């Protein structure tokens, strides 16, 4: 076969299975080949913490049997997908990229995973991530770093690096991730795929292992805007098991797609184009802005004056919530037990010693900003700044702006081991934490290549405004298709 099936557009994949042009088993075979190819050699991508091809083949046969029996197939029947390893599954371990949860298998499924399976998708495995989703490079995983399919000496981004790289490498067409301060959009930008962080509350967080609950959202990866939006539509919606999930209708992913941008106002905040930013990113973003104008949009300069405070506010709020959420990993409630420990205190200590350096740093910092004497100086102040950041966006949208356009990241993917300063880790999310603090929907789509590395552009919408940013992104994507991104380089011979 000249073209691997898994690289076909999602509608063609679904239709091909239904019309028996190929079988789900053939699709899984292609996926197995693609996976073997990218994991071979001295620099494997290291996409998955766990996967099970036998189970995938068995599920593919079930879909074929249903098809033969004339049963109605769900929309994603037989389509392979990947799930970030901080979403609970009953048939794969859920490690969160941590030794603390090594071998742990949840007794229940995350709602997003359940909905993905109910839609017929075949979950191939659990993708690599920074430990407990804390990081921006997937280097902070106990199971080794995930490499960037475009340049294996570089990071895939994070924390959902495994999911982004799996889609970019053509192993799966769809993948789920989670985004706390940029963990879907930043790796999507680094890997040249489309990542959507929905409005906080759009997707149930039930079964998503909590890092910072007021920021965490399940997000989606696809090769195109439509595919990522379709996956979002599949997993979104009210869930009685998550009180923070919104009881609102789920928008159709295809609604308004193909419409022009006449009458659409795009805001471009100067604060997201600071002096000294990577000129390659600036150039591609400026080109995309011109393209938006050519498509009929009105582009307006806007100001988000508290942008500079978003990263430090995020740094405080996220670690505070993390220190609280990660307290449960004590070897008693959750976490690797400590056989032979002489006391409960020893169990706690031995289990929590298994946290990696980044997790320990964030837990300690979170404990500091919540401790007596520091709470008002740090946590309360950060919570107020969060409100100011959200107000900035509200004023912009209230002024008639339909979507805000920014770069997704200040730079293309950096080299493995390049970022060692603990605060630099946060700076990589400088353009993604603001919308996260405000709880707004945002997506990253590829704009082009800079020295062979993908660069992403971010569109931010009003709360519950996913259809609007998907519509704008789809139009921009179609316009950029005249000069599309190439496929990532083929893996080096093993």
């Amino acid at each position: 076969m000249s073209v691997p099936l898994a690289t076909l557009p999602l509608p063609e994949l679904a239709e091909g299975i239904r019309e028996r042009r190929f079988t789900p088993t053939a699709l899984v075979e292609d996926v197995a080949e693609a996976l073997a190819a990218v994991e071979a050699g001295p620099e494997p991508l290291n996409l998955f913490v766990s996967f099970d091809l036998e189970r995938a083949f068995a599920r593919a046969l079930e879909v074929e049997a249903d098809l033969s029996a004339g049963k109605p197939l769900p929309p994603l029947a037989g389509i392979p997908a990947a799930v970030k390893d901080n979403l609970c599954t009953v048939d794969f371990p859920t490690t969160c990229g941590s030794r603390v949860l090594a071998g742990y298998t949840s007794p229940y499924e995350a709602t997003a995973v359940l909905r993905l399976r109910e839609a017929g998708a075949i979950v191939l495995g659990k993708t690599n991530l920074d430990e407990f989703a804390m990081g921006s490079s997937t280097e902070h995983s106990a199971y080794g770093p995930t490499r960037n399919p475009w340049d294996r000496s570089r990071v895939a981004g994070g924390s959902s690096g495994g999911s982004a790289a799996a889609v970019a490498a053509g192993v799966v067409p769809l993948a789920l991730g989670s985004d706390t301060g940029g963990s879907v959009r930043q790796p999507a930008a680094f890997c040249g795929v489309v990542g959507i962080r929905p409005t906080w509350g759009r997707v149930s967080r039930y079964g998503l292992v909590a890092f910072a609950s007021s920021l965490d959202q399940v997000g989606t990866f696809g090769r195109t805007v439509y595919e990522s939006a379709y996956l979002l539509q599949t997993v979104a919606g009210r869930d009685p098991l998550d009180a923070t999930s919104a009881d609102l209708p789920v928008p159709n992913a295809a609604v308004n797609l193909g419409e022009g941008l006449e009458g659409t106002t795009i805001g471009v905040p100067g604060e997201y184009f600071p002096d000294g930013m990577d000129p390659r990113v600036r150039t591609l973003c400026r080109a995309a802005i011109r393209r938006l104008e050519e498509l009929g949009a009105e582009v307006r300069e806007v100001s988000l004056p508290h942008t500079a405070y978003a990263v430090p506010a995020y740094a405080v709020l996220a670690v505070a919530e993390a220190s609280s959420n990660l307290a449960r990993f004590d070897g008693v409630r959750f976490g690797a037990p400590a056989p032979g420990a002489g006391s409960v205190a020893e169990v706690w200590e031995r289990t929590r010693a298994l946290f990696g350096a980044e997790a320990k740093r964030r837990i300690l910092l979170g404990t500091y900003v919540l401790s007596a004497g520091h709470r008002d100086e740090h946590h309360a102040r950060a919570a107020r700044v969060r409100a100011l950041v959200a107000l900035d966006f509200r004023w912009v949208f209230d002024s008639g702006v339909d979507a805000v356009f920014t770069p997704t990241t200040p730079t293309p993917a950096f080299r493995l081991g390049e970022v060692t300063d603990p605060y630099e880790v946060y700076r990589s999310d400088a353009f993604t934490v603001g919308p996260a603090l405000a709880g707004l929907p945002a997506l990253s789509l590829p704009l082009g290549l800079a020295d062979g590395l993908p660069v992403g552009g971010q569109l931010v919408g009003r709360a519950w405004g996913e259809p609007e940013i998907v519509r704008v992104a789809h139009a921009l994507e179609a316009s950029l298709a005249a000069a599309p991104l190439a496929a990532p380089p083929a893996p080096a011979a093993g």
Partner: protein
Amino acid sequence: MAVTPEEVRRLAALARLPLDDAGVAAMVGELGSILEHVRTLARADGADAALAATPHGGAPPLRPDTFGADLLHRTPDMLAPAWRDGHFVVPRLPELDPGAPRPEGETP
């Protein structure tokens, strides 16, 4: 104000994280560096701003104060690998079948 080694040890005790002296020394520098950046928040004039507990403002959504089945509650049969007639299904103990052959090397 820098973070002191004593403060890091106190935080580690509060967080139940074991840290050796080298770990404490590393954290003193790393936490101090991050907190230097965090202190820039003082420049934001947020004194009159509301505390944002959730991204959409206001109070977090709460469940109604009513008694009833907890949606998150899982009964044993929902968690058991195998379940029949109100009991867990487990492998039969060899002691219950004294005549049955035992795995090699195992003494009764």
